[in-house]
């Protein structure tokens, strides 16, 4: 399989439909416009254990995209569901830390897309296929570059309780770039690289 030669560029608008997701395959470049939410360690642990009703969450997650990100927003926003503020740095955080929760979050809240870095594990890969969702890798540490694709902060949830990096932020994005590295058909580019590097490792540690 050679994903490099078959790379497509696709514009995605949120919320995503199951059809949008099924059309994507690993190696595709996407540009996302619309609204996405951030969620990382504490948001995932909370959704997994507390299972808040969809109406308790101020943002509609159905068909939504969760971005594994703890942005820097200025000025510091303290109130709940406040708009305003500017995102000055917002790259992805390591997705693997929420591996134990993600499959359940996708299922319970109708999530169609995950943005992060470094890829996720077999449990999430199976959930992507079962429920129709896609994992989008974006550039690690490109925080200023990516922040320029975020046009505004439409709201925030759990800012006081979880702290600014860990709150759920609702962000307006325009042409936010990412690459499909795990699709809804059971394919993972991360696993492909891991498999390749394992073969090379075996040769070097004999």
């Amino acid at each position: 399989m050679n994903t490099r030669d078959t790379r497509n560029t696709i514009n995605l608008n949120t919320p995503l439909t199951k059809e949008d997701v099924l059309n994507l395959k690993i190696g595709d470049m996407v540009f996302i416009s619309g609204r996405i939410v951030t969620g990382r360690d504490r948001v995932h642990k909370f959704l997994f254990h507390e299972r808040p009703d969809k109406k308790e969450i101020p943002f509609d997650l159905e068909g939504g995209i969760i971005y594994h990100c703890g942005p820097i927003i200025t000025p510091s926003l303290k109130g709940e569901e406040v708009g305003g503020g500017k995102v000055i740095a917002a790259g992805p955080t390591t997705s693997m830390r929420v591996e134990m929760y993600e499959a359940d979050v996708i299922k319970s809240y109708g999530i169609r897309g995950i943005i992060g870095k470094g890829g996720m594990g077999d449990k999430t890969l199976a959930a992507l296929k079962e429920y129709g969702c896609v994992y989008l890798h974006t550039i690690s540490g490109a925080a200023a570059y990516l922040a320029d694709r975020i046009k505004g902060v439409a709201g925030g949830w759990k800012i006081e309780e979880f702290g600014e990096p860990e709150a759920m932020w609702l962000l307006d994005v325009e042409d936010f770039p990412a690459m499909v590295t795990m699709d809804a058909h059971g394919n993972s580019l991360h696993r492909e690289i891991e498999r390749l590097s394992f073969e090379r490792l075996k040769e070097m540690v004999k």
Partner: protein
Amino acid sequence: MLKLRDGIIELYKKVATSIPSDVEEALKNAYSRETSPLAKGSMEIILSNISLARTTSRPICQDTGFPVFFIKVPKGISHQLVKETVIEATRIATKKVPLRPNAVDIVTGKNTSDNTGDYFPLIYMDETEDQSLIVDLMLKGAGCENLGQTYKLPTELKVEGYSVMESNLPNAERNNTITVLAERDFDGVRKCVLDAVFKAQGKGCPPYTIGVAIGGAKDQATFLSKRQLMRRITDNNPDNALTEIEQKILKDINSLGIGAAGLGGETTAIGVKIGAGHRHPASYFVDVSFSCWANRRGRLIW
């Protein structure tokens, strides 16, 4: 001390918004060598992010990290006073740079909002014969910090991998386990580092700089491996035997093919730096510290 405080605030700003020239140079070299389109594309964005952050004075990464200070204090200056000055500078820099507030109380779960707390920032202080006070600051990203490993040699490393090479089966499992003997010698050290990098894959923002320490106490080795990340990419290890093994390990890491962003490619690491401390006959620790590509460090001489 007021001037020192302002100097440290400036140091925070410089370290958060720009990367050292030797690191940038190494990344540019890696970019020009790269043949994988995915890795090259990622490196291109990384390099434009570096110049964008510098020209707009914004943090390179939203994770402005765990601040780690290595300070050399001339005789006669109070260490306590220096420490208090660092803490005050941290509070001001958090608002001014701005830095992301990263200090979370273990008991209450509350973020202190100013990057200060118990052992946060981490401050190592030594006395120096020099007249100048030297403040080295590292802003240590947590994604790469989480990949750090400590090994106790000799050990039998179990490494798990996927065995299916030809087809990309959706339900493939890591059902291929190999056992690697890591003994008390440099080859054992090399195997440990390769194990750590293999397990890290692209999770901590490669191309990495890898700090390694060999020693005889757990905290001695951890401290030393992190300290190696303060070394310039182009420097030479004062010990020739260690230089040789640094180069060998770097070459092997880059043979793994993980690449920038972990999507395959030539450069998984831009440097391997090894330090050593004397060990107890019963112990042989190998500690591996990772820095992401954004190895943010800087020095203030006061």
